[in-house]
């Protein structure tokens, strides 16, 4: 593979490995920076094991300790390199955790209301769009779904989300025609 070296995170400096953290998520965030710097257009980094039906708070302290260090280093580096203006960053999970704490100090699956964090590109810093009710069990204002999010992602990176694309000869909409961009999020 001609571009094999692009994926070789070991070519990054020892200092950067230390800054990002010498664990899987740290390495993956450092690799993400390397891929973006080499003009890879879409990079996904996973951090798993948030499925805390038991001792949610102990495990999330452990997980988020990793996440904070590596993710904040990545964002800082993208900012310092002037790359955030052209890079959309999305932090999301497929669902949230129950507002209610269960008998084992855990939180279970909650698909009724949760949040997605966006930054970079045209996303205005510090904006909070929509809200839940006081105990977080339901959306109280400005409910959006994946359809709205895809329009917003595409608009943020400068694409016309009302267009179509071809997959296997089929003409498909780039985003759900029934949904629209979360326009108040974008500058």
């Amino acid at each position, binding site marked *: 593979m001609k571009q094999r070296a692009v994926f070789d995170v070991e070519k990054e400096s020892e200092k950067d490995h230390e800054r990002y953290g010498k664990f*899987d998520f740290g390495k993956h965030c450092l690799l993400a920076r390397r891929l973006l710097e080499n003009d890879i257009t879409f990079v996904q980094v996973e951090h*798993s*094991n948030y*499925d*805390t*039906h*038991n*001792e949610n*708070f*102990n*495990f999330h*302290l*452990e*997980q988020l300790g990793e996440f904070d260090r590596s993710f904040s280093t990545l964002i800082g580096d993208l900012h310092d390199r002037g790359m955030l203006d052209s890079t959309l960053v999305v932090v999301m999970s497929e669902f949230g955790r129950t507002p209610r*704490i*269960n*008998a*084992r100090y*855990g939180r279970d699956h909650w698909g009724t209301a949760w949040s997605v964090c966006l930054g970079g590109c045209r996303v205005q810093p510090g904006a909070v769009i929509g809200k839940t009710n006081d105990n977080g069990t339901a959306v109280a204002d400005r409910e959006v779904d994946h359809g709205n999010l895809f329009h917003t992602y595409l608009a943020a990176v400068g694409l016309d989300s009302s267009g179509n694309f071809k997959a296997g000869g089929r003409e498909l909409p780039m985003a759900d025609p029934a949904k629209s961009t979360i326009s108040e999020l974008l500058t």
Partner: protein
Amino acid sequence: MPVSEDASSLRDCRQTHVVIEWKHDRPLVTCRFNPSGNALFTSAEDNNVQRWEFPSGKKVDYAGHDSWVRDIAFLPDNETVVTVASDDKMIFWSATAEKPAPMKTIEAHKGWIRTIAVSPDGKLIATGGNDNLVKLWNAADATHVRDLAGHDSDIYSVLFHPDGKSLLSGDLSGIVRQWDIANGTETCTFDAKELHTYNGGQQVHYGGVRNMALSPDGKHLACCGLHKATNPLGAVNEPLVLVFDWEDQKKVQSHIGDGALKGIAWRVHYLSDGTLVGASGGSGGGFLLFWKADQDKEFHKLKLPDTARGLDLHPDDLHLATVHYDKTVRISKMAAKAAS
């Protein structure tokens, strides 16, 4: 219910039964009897502490923490209760006031404070938390005495030896360190790593020395928690109590549950005759477990109506308090039911 009953003549662990239930309005976290035994202090998910007069059940609330209170201890004067919480704070309160308010609040650790103990002479307080530190404090004025550094994971439990010369601290990784209180040096360790699991698939550390107890003759140290953690995120684990010889720190017994209890041994206490009592809670429900020193499995267990989260032994050596997710405090008596 008199608290002066003669435990040695009345106590029959096999006859243990729930004699009192008190209801709170939020799930409960932990509990401690005060030294005189005339009150039980509990903490709950409302961030408050509750004082329940024993046995009447009259309740007084203590509001002042900003997160769950993880542990409670008393000065020997019976007048002062000290609480530690996940808000990094240690708070001193009146143990008897009708409308208690914080008397002194200390930012004691960087991160959760999980455990507190008071020295036998009442002069020192030890705390332990998620900053991997054990800290010693003057009980009289809450001034900091010294840090005991050496653990490399969260501190889950601290325990003063009755001789007043040493302190024990147990952490998430299953290491118990013994400290010389006079100079803060570490004197030995107990290897309780069986109470810790690292699950590579889920990439989480789990378990820890949840609580410790010394046998009445001072010859054994019991450390409780869990093992067989095949799915930490899903609460698939079993209670385990490891017992060590005090002199040579070697493990002499592993107390387990008979059958699948699916829980954590949250806390253990030795009764005056050497019987070890533990409370287990988890996906399998709540149990009181009773072990003899020479048997790995319990000789008796009582299934509680809901999963247990905390346990304490009344000074009368006859009653046990457990706190539960179903917002209920349960007092169990280790004796036959009174004839009706």
